[in-house]
């Protein structure tokens, strides 16, 4: 039996311990805000926080998530008013929106480490998150805007 917390709520899981956290979130507990993009840690669409750090949930097995705190886009802010979410809306970032959960979770981890990231910091933190619609310019703008608010 694997125990973990997802968005603050205690959970138990007794299935395949090698199942990636991604599929547990999506198929077992219906938190579909975390997306499948590549299954290989190459695109960042599945990014969540595990004990406060950005992790690719497609590369995180359930056994390695045991006793950890998992935070998904659904749990980022109860009122959906995390400074990044606000900035994302102000900048009208999303196009199709599919990668945006992962982008926001990755950016949230960045802002925890660097309150005011430079362009190079943003490139380095966000290069693992692909947006095929090409919203990168607005993502960069929204991260900077959120950083200003947080400061």
């Amino acid at each position, binding site marked *: 039996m694997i125990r973990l917390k997802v968005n603050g709520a205690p959970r138990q899981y007794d*299935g*395949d311990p090698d*199942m*990636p956290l991604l*599929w547990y979130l*999506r*198929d*077992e507990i*219906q*938190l*579909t*805000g*975390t*997306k*499948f*993009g*590549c*299954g*290989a840690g*190459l*695109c960042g*669409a599945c990014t969540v926080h595990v004990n406060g750090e950005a992790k690719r949930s497609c590369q995180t097995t359930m056994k390695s998530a045991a006793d950890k705190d998992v935070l*998904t*886009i*659904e749990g980022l802010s109860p*009122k*959906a008013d995390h400074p990044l*979410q606000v900035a*994302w*809306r102000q900048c*009208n*970032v*999303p*196009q*199709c*929106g*599919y*990668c*945006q*959960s992962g982008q*926001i979770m990755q950016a949230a981890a960045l802002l925890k480490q660097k309150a005011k990231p430079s*362009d190079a910091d*943003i*490139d*380095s933190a*966000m*290069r*693992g*998150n*692909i*947006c*095929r*619609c*090409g*919203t*990168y*310019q*607005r*993502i*960069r703008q929204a991260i900077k805007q959120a950083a200003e608010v947080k400061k």
Partner: protein
Amino acid sequence: MNRIEVVSRRTFLGSVFSAGAFVLAARVLPVRALTADVDKAAWRPSVYLGIDTDGTVTIVAHRSEMGTGIRSVLPMVAAEELDADLKMIKIEQAIGDVKYGSQNTDGSCSIRDFYDAMRDAGATARLMLERAAAAKWGVPAAECKAQSHQVAHTSGKKLGYGELASLAAQQPAPKKEELKYKSPAEYRYVGKELPTVDRDDLTTGKGIFGIDARMPGMLYASIERSPVLGGKLKSYDDQETKKVAGVKEVVVLPGVTPPHGFKPLGGIAVIADNTWAAMKGREKLTVQWEPGDNASYDSPAYKQSLLETVRKPQKAVRNIGDVDAEFAKGGKTVEAEYYAPHLSHAPMEPPAAVAEFKDGKVMVYAATQNPQAVQDTVAAALGIDKKNVECHVTLLGGGFGRKSKPDYVAEAALLSKAVGKPVNVTWSREDDIRFDYYHTVSAMYMKAAVDEKGRPTAWLQRCAFPSMMTTFNATTTSASGGELGMGWINVPFDIPNHRAENGPAQHHVRLGWLRSVANIQHAFAVQSFADELAHNAKRDSVEYLLDLIGPARRIEPAQPTRLSAKYPLDTGRLRKVIELAAEQSGWAKKNPAKGRALGIAAHYSFLTYVAAVVEVEVDSTGKIRISRVDYAVDAGKVINPDRVKAQFEGAAVFGTSIALMGEITAAKGEIQQSNFHDYPVARMNEAPLETRVHIVTSDAPPAGVGEPGVPPIPPAICNAIFAATGKRIRELPIKRQKLA
């Protein structure tokens, strides 16, 4: 009535604007289809519009949302003419139904094809509301004016749209010539940068995509397919598969014969309790395939055959003057060959759908650009009538043309029928890259005879590529008129002798349209060659391009279409975007340093005029950074400038992926790429750092926006690289070239 609504698909626009009006989306979709709200409205002045007695205005979004904002933007056209209050507007996504007209969200034509219809829907409702109020009050209709969700009489009395809905429903529908449209000065929504209806859901993980659709009792499928198109299943062993916890069944889907159309590819489906178990069970299959004829497909050899084809005379598809006579004069000539590889769409959401077959009917939730094609394809696959296929359209995690082809939806329907439960089919990224409907592979040969000023007196352009029409007619070997009409036979240059040719090419993979389609290779060759000639003549690239285009005039189409009269090709508008992009980019003041320079390209596609000036920096190791893109765009009338800018910002990135890194190759018929490590797309650190979009204000009819930003980017990047380094790129992707 105890029903679960898919709230995110029936969103009140007001929620975007009023704080705290946040709605939770249900995670389980209804077992049986709901009656659409618009069908229950008290009054239905248009197929796209319903008005209820409480004043709720339901506007149908019949086009698919894959990131353009169309499901928000198009309804605003109706809302504008109705002068409806945004807080009272509800947008409802249509199921697939011919009554809405074409729902194929493709070809950058949603606004262009439905602007008039949505405008008429709003204007019709407004006039009927005014007439209903006039009848109720016993006053002339001319004294009544509908504004902000109320009809007001000159005396000051007012009635809300909801109060008038039932009365308005009694009014005879006005004739089109009776309709009065607002003047642009009166616009509240059109031309304004309104947020989209899905914006909040897409920043909170609440948006429902095809991959997120759920039905009670649903199972998950992963399908193993022949690595070579048309390969036959010889044998398989699923003993190990069935030992995987969660695996329920293994189902063989029969293979198909050409033409492939939208038919499912066939294969071995592993069906399980969850996606992971299905994928893991699939890995345990042992399968033998008979590869068949397409195993002959090898990209290096095929490339040589295409190049050989374009080195020889081919069928003329457009001919002005006599290029041969001009070349025979023996003057100076310039020649070049270009090559562009296959590309994969790679939307971030791979193809995904859920289907339930029950009592001879199918209900589908799919990320699809074309729900009516879903109806046709599923009906054909299951041998049922199309009216028994109900297709609900989810949000699409990107489309780019891939999701117009609903093979994956038919897979879900076939599997649901086989196992008697709803089935979710999710393609892995490897499936997506290896079994796509690829953008074609192409070779282009260009030759010009030039006068003493370096201006062409004759221009020959020859292309060869397997046509995407081979997907529908397997014996086709030449390009279709539609493909040649994309920047090949309509090159608007002022050259006395001008011939375009097209040579034959065989296909070995499924081909399809990818964002901007044949414009990609055509713009690459034409706009690169124009720049080569400019440098050859030692002339400024912008000045030279304007000289090639010649004076402002209307060009008779080589191949008139239904749109030719309404949208004549106007070189004055093309000149203007080139001048605007040059001006905004500081072209005249450009000061190329070693390794940093500007490049320009201009291309007319989807009835829109686009020029792009790109600034590149190439460092001593050959690494490229695109520091800035300045687009100038004349797309006619613009409904939402912010969404137009977003489409062009995205097109700059999409075009960058094509230019720098996009390449699909085959060996022995098998696609060699499989995921983002070997089919890379532009990441944040590779994308243009800044893209500025300069929109030309225009009253011309609205034209395309989603695609026309893509074609100028690869040649503009290549032209900038030449200016920066002296290295001419004639073959994509650029990553194959040594720049240092």
